[in-house]
């Protein structure tokens, strides 16, 4: 509601959602970066300028994120509560808070912490929420406690809008967006917003409505991925529910059937075209069903996260052997095992590179912001069809739960390249794996008039089992030549990007969703380069060498090992100068990058980032 409201006033926003992996009642928070009149809007940092809290739990959780001059909006009805009043508060946090209050000599109540913040220069707007909401409710004819409780979101957002000097009209737009179709509820909430705005006289700033002059979109990473699939021609998405991947497939499913473009030739006669979204019984089935769809000729994908991805390993190897192009969209989360299901991690790079037994060609590709998530979904669908290999698209929880108002991307930036199937005039036998072509002709059952055998066993050109050592060598080499083809055909700018001065002595190296944080940090860090790697396999060894040889490197990653650093050492023979890692389940922020860089400048080799917003 808040992000859309601010966006509707003409601003750009880059925010993310944090939430607990529990069944009900855990805290959700949205961390919003600096509201900006230009894109890219900065990524969130480690401190908070304005905290809009619903309860005392949130006040205490963010005590150490509020700095002198920042604003806190809170409910004074919670004043007497202590960390122990909140059953959902993590015990270690409750203990830290109580210890802190004791050391500082104040009572560990909400009031105690708020007073502490006031003394440290935080501007506090404390209001008795429920008293006000009840009064407003009486005025607009709502008295049911259940209904009143639902107004709190709108109430708090409106208090925040008031502080930002945002007109009530834009809160109303946020309300309309967030509450969907229920007209009477929307009207009530608009009235609540209008009344709540009057309660705050202070102003942090005045956000004047502006006309950005371009079409913009409010979306999150899961949605960006689904849109990319739909636009990129993916027509079969198979999934087994798992956080944070499910909303990718669910968005795809929700949008079936898709609106047809008026430039769609023959298809333009139809208003809508369909697709299949299919919930499988497990991830073993999910990847197999998606692969089956690709065998039949559909652009097919499966969406998953670490635990499900682990189950898919055998089928990845088969797709490599059988030469089927299937896309696996992996939304990484903090592992190992079940780990932290709703938290950020980049721990699955090694696994993505080496998943599946035996040696076979594949592509591993990562995206770093919402536009990339969208466009790269089109790219990976192209590549799966072109090279007939499994393509692992590495995304993460941070991207999935990034909520942003961005310029509307142009899908035509990535051309959809279709590999036409071979079609024989009449039914005949055909070789599925001829030795003279790196990528075999595209044979589709029921389309090609071809009778052909596909095989997971090592096979002859006809697709029947073969173990003759001479024949095996030829088939193996032919299959592996795809890696060279991939390296040659995919242009360098799709493999990696370099930002900053060409002659920088020091270069930050990163991949995936750390991109936005690093780019935000570069605004502050001068004379630093940023090598941002997207193609992780086949690894762009020569390009990486070109950018990193002879420079000092700082690898920044959301994992424990510094996996990209190790991969770079393995494939490019470059020894990283320093590695900054964060593995507490929280994304790397722009402030983290700046602080890590300062430590790197000071000569530190292994930098552990422990910030917690």
């Amino acid at each position, binding site marked *: 509601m808040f992000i859309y409201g601010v966006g509707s006033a003409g601003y750009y926003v880059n925010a993310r959602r944090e939430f607990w992996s529990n069944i009900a009642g855990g805290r959700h928070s949205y961390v919003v970066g600096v509201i900006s009149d230009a894109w890219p809007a900065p990524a969130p940092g480690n401190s908070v300028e304005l905290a809009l809290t619903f309860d005392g739990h949130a006040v205490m959780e963010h005590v150490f994120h509020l700095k002198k001059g920042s604003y806190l909006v809170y409910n004074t009805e919670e004043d007497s509560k202590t960390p122990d009043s909140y059953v959902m508060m993590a015990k270690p946090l409750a203990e830290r808070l109580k210890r802190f209050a004791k050391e500082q000599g104040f009572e560990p109540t909400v009031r105690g912490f708020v007073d502490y913040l006031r003394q440290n220069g935080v501007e506090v707007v404390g209001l008795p929420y429920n008293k006000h909401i009840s009064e407003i409710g009486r005025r607009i004819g709502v008295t049911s406690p259940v209904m009143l409780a639902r107004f709190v979101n709108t109430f708090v957002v409106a208090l925040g809008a008031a502080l930002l000097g945002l007109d009530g009209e834009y809160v109303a737009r946020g309300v309309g967006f967030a509450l969907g179709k229920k007209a009477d509820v929307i009207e009530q909430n608009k009235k609540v917003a209008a009344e709540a705005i009057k309660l705050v006289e202070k102003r942090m700033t005045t956000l004047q409505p502006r006309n950005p002059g371009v079409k913009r979109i409010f979306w999150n990473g899961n949605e960006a991925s689904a849109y990319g699939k739909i636009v990129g021609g993916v027509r079969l998405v198979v999934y087994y529910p798992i956080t944070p991947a499910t909303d990718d497939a669910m968005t795809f499913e929700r949008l079936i059937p898709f609106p047809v473009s008026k430039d*769609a030739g023959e298809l333009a006669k139809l208003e809508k075209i*369909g697709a299949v979204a299919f919930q499988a019984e497990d991830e073993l089935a999910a990847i197999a069903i998606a692969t089956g769809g690709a065998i039949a000729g559909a652009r097919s994908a499966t969406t998953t996260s670490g635990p499900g991805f682990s189950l898919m390993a055998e089928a990845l190897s088969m797709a490599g052997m059988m030469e089927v192009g299937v896309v696996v969209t992996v939304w990484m989360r903090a592992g190992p095992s079940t780990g932290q299901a709703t938290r950020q991690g980049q721990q699955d790079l090694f696994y993505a590179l080496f998943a599946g037994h035996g040696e076979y060609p594949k592509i591993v590709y990562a995206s770093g912001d919402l536009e990339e998530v969208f466009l790269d979904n089109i790219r990976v669908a192209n590549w799966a069809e072109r090279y007939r290999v499994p393509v692992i698209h590495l995304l993460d929880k941070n991207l999935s739960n990034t909520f942003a108002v961005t310029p509307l991307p142009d899908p035509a930036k990535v051309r959809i390249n279709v590999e036409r199937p071979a079609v024989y005039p009449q039914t005949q036998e055909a070789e599925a794996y001829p030795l003279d072509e790196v990528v075999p002709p595209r044979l589709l059952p029921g389309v090609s008039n071809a009778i052909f055998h596909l095989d997971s066993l090592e096979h002859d050109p006809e697709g029947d089992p073969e173990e003759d050592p001479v024949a095996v060598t030829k088939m193996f080499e032919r299959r592996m030549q795809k890696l060279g083809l991939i390296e040659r055909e995919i242009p360098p700018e799709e493999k990696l990007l370099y930002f900053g001065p060409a002659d920088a002595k020091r270069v930050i190296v990163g991949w995936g969703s750390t991109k936005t944080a690093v780019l935000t940090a570069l605004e502050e860090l001068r004379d630093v380069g940023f090598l941002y790697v997207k193609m992780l396999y086949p690894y762009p060894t020569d390009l990486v060498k070109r950018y990193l040889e002879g420079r000092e490197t700082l690898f920044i990653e959301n994992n424990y090992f510094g996996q990209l650093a190790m991969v770079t050492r393995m494939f490019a023979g470059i020894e990283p100068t320093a590695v900054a890692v964060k593995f507490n389940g929280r994304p790397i922020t722009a402030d983290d990058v700046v602080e890590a860089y300062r430590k790197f400048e000071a000569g530190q080799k292994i930098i552990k980032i422990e910030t917690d917003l």
Partner: protein
Amino acid sequence: MTMQIVKRTAADYRWVRPPEWCPGCGHFGVLQSLYNAFAELNLDPANVVLVSGIGCSSRLPHYVKTTSVHAIHGRAIPYALGIKLANPSLEVVVVGGDGDLMAIGGNHLLHLGRRNVDMAVILMDNSVYGLTRGQAGPTLPAGVKVKAVPKANPQGEINPLLLALTAGFTFIARGYSYDIKYTTRLIVEAIRHKGSAFVQIYSPCVTYNNVMTREWYEKRIYKLEEADPAWDPVVHDEKEVDVKLRKALDKIVERDRLPLGIFYKNELVPTFDERYEGLYDPNYRKLPPALQPVEVDGKSVVDFEKLVADRLL
């Protein structure tokens, strides 16, 4: 335009490679029945996809002149399902052994039934793992000791038809591989059936199952319609469902004698295609995922701005 009508014979479905099974293996009978069934249905071999997993029986597609996918252990059903979902006009048939379909792949069998996707699954049941030299299969009864293992089986067996009935398969049959004529009929009926069909075929392993041999089976098997000329497994009316299920169940749980034939057939249950067409995509069968053009001159056929209309600012 004149259509050329081709009438194919069983021999037209024979691939160049001869089968590599042990002499006398029950699987030869299944293979011959499959050739016969394809010929009887006159299927275009380029429109058939035969899908298997791993095991002696899963080699079968390599001996058949149709398109085929020899996949990984246990996953024949989901690969087949993906093919069928993407192009429902294909004739998709799964073959596999009891280890492949009932053990490592059991979960997929369970879930195919409730979906009622229009495809046939043929279980070549010999109660042992032949390819890995004779371990107990999931259909081997408790207490039975087969040749290659040191002791009698400490694990109980799965009754495949009981599982299939519970899972929601709408066609359930059992055949015997040495009775090729009868097995052919069952396969033809299974492929013709509109919905998920399951056929268990007793297919003795002459090398490793020295208990459940040809002689053992032939002492026990009988045909449902011979024992009861009034036997009618077909659900003709919704109201008959419970009665027909119970009748099928009675026969499926027989242990001392082993009935063959069609136990249950219900075409009144909507197939997955029909459900999907009704709920999601009215053009699903006309323009399924595999047959849709996705671009014109490199541009998407989908109108992106309309797609995201509710997210635009």
